[in-house]
């Protein structure tokens, strides 16, 4: 640990808090269709897109219509992406002549990018052509982000509107998000990255003769344009196998800081957008504070844990911080902060090898994901996931004081609570059942790389990460069955590919549909004025209650599993 490391954490949180209301306001303006700076340029494009899609902002949908459009659009895009990956051998921009990955890997990958997970059972530079990365995978980085944000905005409308049935028009929300938010920020961000050394080229890989006379091949590609949306959209799928550890993706401490900010900015800002749209920014800040409290604790724990030696280092006779699987330019501070950022958000980009983190240092990222990715979480999905927890907290408080629970003046009924329970508990169930399947059957065994409790941790991490749409990994999991067939880096454990794909689909769409249904139910309610017995939801007490609800419901479910893996390792010096 050092002063610079702590200072970076403080500055990061300060910067995030400072931009939250600015971006939050901009998002509100965009989704309310107000005039913004870019309107003169982009307005005609926006209207052109509506014409092509045969829709217009005044044609709003109820929650079922909204959900149906999301599902149809996602299903169609899944098929298109799968085909594109499978056909990459016949498509252009493939200077290395890469052939199609196997069907099961292609399916896992297509689902992975569609669901904003970006779990990668493949290595980018050895498996995917420039065209696949750019016109297939990176497109989903935009689209899955836009879908998540659009749904979040629809859910916010459900909370904000009174005695209404409609929650917005999906196409309008998705197009406004892409056009006014994602694309402009990415254009600027990608060019900034290039200015710092991140590559952006369609040229082939370059063979060089090194100083010692050896050869080294520099894999290249259109990296910067993909890198920025990968963070901004909390996607996380690296162009290269080692993700944002690769200097061509993330070249310095400065780019690292900017990328971390890009990951959290939209999830953080949406809390403010929520506050503004429901008519009280304080409500948004309460949600933000609950997220920030958890995040700060997570960062501090990882940083402290990684600053110590691991049992392996002790045995090797090394003294100092755990630099295994970390690059020098990031060191312990920037690697720990990145690990916390990428797992509280459902991003999953990594700049260090998560698997080589210490016991506690690896347990915290897992715990972050196990909350259901509601501590900032994925773009959009983090907010609507957290709002389900808000309702749960209100409900628990209502039980304690014996009053009908209400939030923002709306009474929370049995139907809403049933939906909340589905939305918050279904994914933990998927994680536990799928992990048990992978651990308890012979099909899961070939995926495990490390021996002892670490092998269990790998498996638990894999299904936690996929079901919560994070995408980071203890990358030994199925990582070393390569090369396979024609594709170095692709491999064929069909069981893991299919189970993982199922986890990602459940994890994406079950909470999303639950949240939309809740929003539909809430939109129709009338608002009663606050009385003397109304529990306030914009106070520190409520923040504590909310953090407690997340810890209670999400985390306690996983304590036994965490104990078996990373906690055991954190408590012993034994080697396995």
């Amino acid at each position, binding site marked *: 640990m050092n002063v610079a490391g702590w200072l970076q954490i403080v500055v990061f949180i300060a910067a995030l808090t400072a931009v939250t209301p600015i971006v939050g306001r901009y998002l509100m303006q965009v989704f309310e269709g107000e005039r913004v700076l870019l309107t003169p340029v982009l307005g005609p494009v926006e209207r052109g897109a509506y014409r092509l899609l045969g829709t217009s902002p005044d044609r709003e949908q109820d929650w079922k219509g909204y959900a149906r459009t999301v599902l149809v659009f996602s299903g169609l895009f899944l098929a298109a992406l799968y085909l594109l990956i499978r056909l990459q051998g016949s498509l252009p921009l493939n200077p290395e002549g890469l052939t199609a990955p196997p069907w099961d890997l292609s399916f896992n990958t297509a689902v992975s990018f569609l669901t904003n997970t970006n779990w990668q059972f493949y290595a980018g530079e050895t498996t995917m052509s420039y065209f696949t990365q750019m016109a297939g995978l*990176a497109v989903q980085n935009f689209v899955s982000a836009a879908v998540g944000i659009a749904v979040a905005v629809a859910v916010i409308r459900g909370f904000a509107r009174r005695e209404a049935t409609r929650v917005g028009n999906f196409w309008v929300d998705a197009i406004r998000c892409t056009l006014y938010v994602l694309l402009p920020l990415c254009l600027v961000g990608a060019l900034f990255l290039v200015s710092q050394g991140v590559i952006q080229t369609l*040229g082939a890989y370059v063979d060089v003769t*090194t100083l010692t006379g050896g050869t080294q091949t520099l894999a290249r590609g259109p990296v910067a*344009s993909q890198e920025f949306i990968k963070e901004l959209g909390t996607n996380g799928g690296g162009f290269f196998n080692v993700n944002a550890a690769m*200097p061509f993706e993330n070249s310095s401490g400065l780019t690292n800081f900017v990328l971390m900010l890009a990951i959290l900015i939209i999830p953080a800002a949406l809390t403010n957008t929520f506050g503004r749209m429901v008519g009280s920014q304080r409500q948004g800040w309460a949600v933000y504070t609950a997220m920030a409290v958890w995040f700060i604790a997570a960062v501090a724990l990882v940083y402290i844990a990684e600053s110590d030696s691991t049992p*392996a280092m002790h045995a090797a006779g090394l003294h100092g911080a755990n630099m295994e699987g970390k690059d020098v330019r990031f060191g312990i501070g920037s690697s720990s902060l990145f690990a916390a950022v990428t797992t509280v958000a459902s991003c999953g980009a990594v700049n260090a090898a998560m698997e080589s983190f210490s016991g506690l240092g690896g347990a915290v990222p897992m715990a972050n994901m196990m909350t259901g990715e509601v501590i900032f979480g994925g773009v959009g999905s983090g907010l609507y996931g957290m709002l389900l927890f808000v309702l749960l907290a209100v409900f628990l408080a209502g039980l304690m004081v014996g009053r009908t629970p209400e939030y923002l003046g709306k009474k929370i009924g049995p139907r809403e609570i049933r939906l909340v329970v589905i939305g918050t508990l279904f994914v933990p169930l998927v994680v536990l059942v799928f992990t048990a399947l992978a651990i308890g059957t012979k099909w899961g065994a070939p995926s495990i790389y490390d021996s002892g409790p670490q092998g269990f941790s790998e498996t638990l991490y894999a299904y936690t990460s996929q079901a919560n749409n994070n995408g980071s990994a203890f990358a030994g999991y199925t990582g070393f069955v390569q090369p396979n067939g024609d594709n170095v880096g692709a491999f064929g454990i069909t069981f893991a590919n299919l189970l993982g794909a199922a986890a990602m689909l459940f994890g994406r769409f079950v909470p999303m549909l639950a949240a939309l249904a809740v929003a539909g139910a809430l939109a129709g309610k009338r608002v009663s004025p606050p009385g003397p017995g109304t529990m306030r939801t914009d106070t520190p007490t409520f923040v504590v209650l909310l953090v407690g609800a997340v810890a209670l419901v999400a985390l306690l479910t996983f304590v036994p599993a965490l104990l078996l893996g990373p906690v055991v390792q954190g408590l012993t010096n034994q080697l396995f």
Partner: protein
Amino acid sequence: MRKDLIASAVAVLLFTVVCGLIYPLAVTGIAQVTMPGKANGSQIERDGKVVGSELIGQDFQGRRRYFQSRPSASDDSADATFFNNLGPNQRDLATQQHQAAVAYARRERIALADVPVDAATTSASGVDPHISPENAEIQARRVARVRGLSLDRVNDLIDEHTDGRGLGFMGEPGVNVLTLNLALDEETR
């Protein structure tokens, strides 16, 4: 449903063209025109030949006249990158780290306990272009000896090739091994 399907089909094309072609090609075009060196991988030329990239570490093992890069799980591969992926309690990891530390201590003639951690642990990227300043300072004695340079001159070169923290607090300082070794070659040419 039918209406959703038609709109979705159009949207699939629209998003693919705008986000998958226009956007990345625009970034590529602007980058290639305004910052071609960086956009193409910060390649370094010597005597008209590309010898590497400023950002990508190389393997210097067995060459005592050069500063040594960090251990790499992928043998410094820049076209098939991967992590070491051994957990904190793995015996194999302890063995690897111990062997790396012993080799380093012998080469630099220091005690095992004084080996800097970055010299005995694999990097994340496998092509970490940097070593820590402490690591460089230890290696400087050997390099100066082998090359017949003064230690002060080598230390000056280390300083010149040290990349500091971003804005003074982002990340950690590191010494770029490849550019430092190139400078040394230049010095003793």
